[in-house]
């Protein structure tokens, strides 16, 4: 899922300055990250009202990145949205930009910072997983991804700073290459460690840099 965090409330107030607000949440990733589910939307409404900001209404989309479903759900709150000067979106950046397409004349405020694609590995603990590079190579590395998890994106073994299984940049983090080597040792696939992996083809990554429509 897409991991996001709420922006500091004061910075949201700074962006609003004046005018009325309609709040939009998301039932999926943002809800699981506790930044845009119904409880957070209601909490945001309460805090805005306490700050003397008029809130015309709110909705939790299901999910915010589903354009067609959004159109259907928004029908029930047309008037509240019309009355608002700002749409405050508490979803990831995808949802924010889908909503911008539906309301190109409204001032859109993103109430979150979108951080990474990852997994909830424990309650409230999220781990960054995929780097969205567009051409998956984890099959060469026993399911472990050096593009996502090595800060230098090394494809041919650990750098000279890998020490006792830890990354040279931050000793709190494991060296992914140490993990790859250990797993290959365990699976008796060490021969492939001598393979020279050529420079990565970033074409697929670049292909998705535009706001293009992709039929999948």
């Amino acid at each position, binding site marked *: 899922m897409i991991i996001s965090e709420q922006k500091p409330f004061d910075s949201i107030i700074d962006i609003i300055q004046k005018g009325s607000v309609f709040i939009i949440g998301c039932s999926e990733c943002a809800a699981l990250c506790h930044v845009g589910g119904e409880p957070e939307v209601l909490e945001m409404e309460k805090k805005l009202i306490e700050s003397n900001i008029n809130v015309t209404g709110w909705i939790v989309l299901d999910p915010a990145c589903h354009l067609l479903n959004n159109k259907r759900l928004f029908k029930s709150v047309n008037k509240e949205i019309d009355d608002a000067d700002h749409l405050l979106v508490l979803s990831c950046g995808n949802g924010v930009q889908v909503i911008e397409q539906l309301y190109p004349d409204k001032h859109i405020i993103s109430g979150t910072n979108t951080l990474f694609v990852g997994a909830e590995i424990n309650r409230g603990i999220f781990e960054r997983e995929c780097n969205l590079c567009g051409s998956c190579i984890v099959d060469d590395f026993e399911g472990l991804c050096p593009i996502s998890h090595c800060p230098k994106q090394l494809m*041919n*073994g*650990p750098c000279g700073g890998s020490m*006792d299984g830890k990354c040279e*940049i931050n*000793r709190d983090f494991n060296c992914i290459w140490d993990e790859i080597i250990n797993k290959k040792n365990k699976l008796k696939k060490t021969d492939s460690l001598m393979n*020279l992996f050529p420079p990565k083809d970033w074409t697929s990554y670049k292909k998705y840099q535009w706001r293009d429509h992709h039929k999948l």
Partner: protein
Amino acid sequence: MDACNITDNQTAVVRLSSLAGSVLLKQKNIEPIYQMSCRDRNRIALQSDILGAVALGINNILFVTGDHQSVGNHPHAKGVFDIDSIQLVSIAKSMRDKGIFQNGEPLKKPFFNLFIGAVCNPFATPYDYRVDRLEKKINAGADFIQTQSVFNIDHFQNFMDKVISRGLDKKVFILAGVTPMKSEKMMDRMKFHVPGVDIPDDVYNRLKNADDFQAESQIVSCETINSLKKMKGVHGIHITALFWESIIPSFLERCNFLPRP
């Protein structure tokens, strides 16, 4: 000395361009080893710089991945890391030996006068993999190797035994790194804070208890060099007198390196 390394914004701190530095040395008739890192440039810029270096008469290039930008003086920078050092070595070799760029297109004018260098750290873990990684670099096209600074001779001997058993010392020139440390502070930093540096406790304590740190430090380095000179498979020494370059002439003399052939 025979050649001087010009580092490429090492520790991710902005410094004079290593290509410019290499040209300045060349103008003074000093043989440069131009270091090139993958941190700040993609494959287009790196290949362009290889062509530029060769055109300027810089024939020794040492390819490294580079220190991560987060450890330097512009931690907010975006790192490039389009390719890694082994891939860059392979690209340089293809440019020289096959006359082609990474994309397979031919160079308009071939060149042959390029001596390809790479680095190796026998003191980083996993230890067993370090010989594999060296072999990968040799297979990719490295002609010479500069190692991390050697303080732990026993560990380095162990590493070299494995290198020799695979015959790798016959395929590449290995220059062992030696660092005379200028101060106790530097030693503490290197021992406790620089990943991949192995200063054994006996060396550390000997220098810690020395009356004159700098004098003792040079003696230790000289002894290391004497051991390395006798070590099979070691073809040369790479001296890194960090922030202490001024001692190099006298240090070379003390280690019986002068006069050079």
